[in-house]
């Protein structure tokens, strides 16, 4: 049996009267690409926000490697090895491309406020190490030429790539992508798909929220379909494509 990396148990999130996530039960296998699809407002982003500690559940449980992470803050969850990207891309546009990835090494480096104050940057070994690692990830996404450009001036496609590289620089065990292809053209979408495949190959588990069905069906191992915060179907891409409930949810009755 394959090990479970992430598990939702009766997960519930209410915003006042709105039930965004409703008694969700789901598991994610380690090493897989598991996709979550569903109409707008189905609760996909809310599931990610709950998983990464930006929201806390109204009820239910989120388990990472069998341990409950419900009560943890976002930075604690990151330190366990869960990375994410955002639906509305969030690069640090006040920094260069390389610096964006260097911040991604935060959890893999240590110097604190006192040593940073007293020792100048050019005398710090850790600083050189951070830079080397960041350059490696920049290479990984094929953006080595953009290293010194301000992140804010990149086109959307590259900003999304950069956001992914920043998350990868953490060397996470699990990474959550929230609509990484939205707003991208066909060529850029293809590149994102390839990158996600490469990430899986490197041993990182991927949970993907996406509207581009071609991409989903192409790269997913398992697809979960969410409507009104509940799981209405789960299976391989082939199974999902012929599922009656899914077709109804997407096309309306």
């Amino acid at each position, binding site marked *: 049996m394959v090990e479970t990396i992430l598990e939702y148990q009766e997960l519930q999130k209410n915003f006042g009267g709105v039930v965004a996530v409703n008694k969700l039960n789901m598991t994610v296998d380690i090493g897989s690409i598991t996709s979550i699809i569903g109409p707008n407002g189905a609760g996909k982003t809310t599931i990610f926000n709950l998983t*990464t*500690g*930006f929201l806390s559940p109204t009820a239910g449980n989120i388990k990472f490697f069998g341990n409950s992470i419900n009560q943890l*803050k*976002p*930075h604690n969850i*990151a*330190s366990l090895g869960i*990375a*994410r990207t*955002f639906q509305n891309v*969030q*690069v*640090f*546009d*006040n*920094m260069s491309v390389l*610096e964006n990835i*260097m*911040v*991604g090494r*935060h*959890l893999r*480096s*240590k*110097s*604190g*406020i006192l040593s*940073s*104050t*007293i*020792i*100048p*940057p*050019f005398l*710090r070994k*850790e*600083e050189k190490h*951070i830079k080397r690692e960041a350059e490696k990830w920049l290479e990984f996404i094929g953006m080595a030429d953009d290293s010194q450009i301000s992140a804010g001036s990149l086109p959307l496609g590259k900003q999304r790539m950069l*956001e992914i590289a*920043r*998350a990868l*620089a*953490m060397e996470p065990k699990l990474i959550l992508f929230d609509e990484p292809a939205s707003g991208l053209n066909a060529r850029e979408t293809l590149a994102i798909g390839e990158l996600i495949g490469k990430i899986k190959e490197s041993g990182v588990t991927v949970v993907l929220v996406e509207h581009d069905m071609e991409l989903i069906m192409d790269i997913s191992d398992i697809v979960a379909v969410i409507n009104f915060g509940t799981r209405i179907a789960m299976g391989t891409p082939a199974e999902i494509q012929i599922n009656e409930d899914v077709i109804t949810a997407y096309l309306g009755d």
Partner: protein
Amino acid sequence: MVIRDYIFLGIFLLVMACVPLLLKNDYYISIFVFASFNCLACIGLSLLLGYAGQISLGHAAFIGIGAYTSGYLTTQFAWSPWITMFIGVVISIIIAIAVGVPSLKLRGHYLAMATLGFGAILYIVAVAAVDITGGPAGLNNIPPLNLFGLILDSDKKFFFFSWSVVVIGLLFALNLINSRVGRGLRALHGSEDAANSIGINTSSYKIQIFIFSAVFSSIAGSLYAHYVTYIDPGPFGIMHSVLLMTMVAVGGMHKIWGAVIGSLLLSLLPEFLSFSTGYFKTFGIEYKPDYDTLVYGIILLSIMLFLPEGLYGGFSSAFRAVKNIVKRNGKKAKSSS
């Protein structure tokens, strides 16, 4: 980026070293000494405002804590000013933790409220606790600093000392910005959510930077006490806290150099204005010192409207524009020849 900072630091050192040579009058040198205290406080404050994105309306109170700790302990117990300066720093750290931790744990601008209250309370204490602070009359006969046997009792001597302290503070702040912690702070400023998502404990960073900036202010306060040798609650009120924030904003809050420019400019401005009173008269305007506040307000407003990145930001975009024009003309000249 880093190299440019060191070049600026070298230029800054040269310029400041020339100031006492150009100014023959001790009075003007003393204005620069006062500016150094503001500058030191503003360097810390710019980390807080420009990098951690938090507003403090109580930093003059930290200056006051430094000043009164030094003033009280040196006059009452004749302790060494260096030790009392250190004790002032420790007290400031404790108070910064007490004020900062509860208000910075939450997201939002609670710190501004908390520091406003804390500044007001401390001011009242300084006026009312007559036995310790001397009340409105203050403390007198605070001894001058003794630097390895050199008594810093003249304006010129103190000028060199206090600006050296500013340069050290500046060096520390620049080191910090160009480090893992500094990147974390800039990330927090860029997107707090994204910073959290890669493991940065943003509230802890905000608290640390608040403490850091309080230490800068406390040292500025101790230096102030040993320079003027008498203190009263006057300069440590809310108005001065607001003025410090204004200095940082006018200079440009996202760059440490902005704090240096803003604090120097606004510290020297009142002197310049009173100096110009004569000129105003020739235009039939009776200029009164009360108008200073108005001038500050106009400056702050125009900066916010026209130069949101402050004077430093304005200078650097002007510099970039000129560089581009020169480059373009250079290319044209080449292609036409």
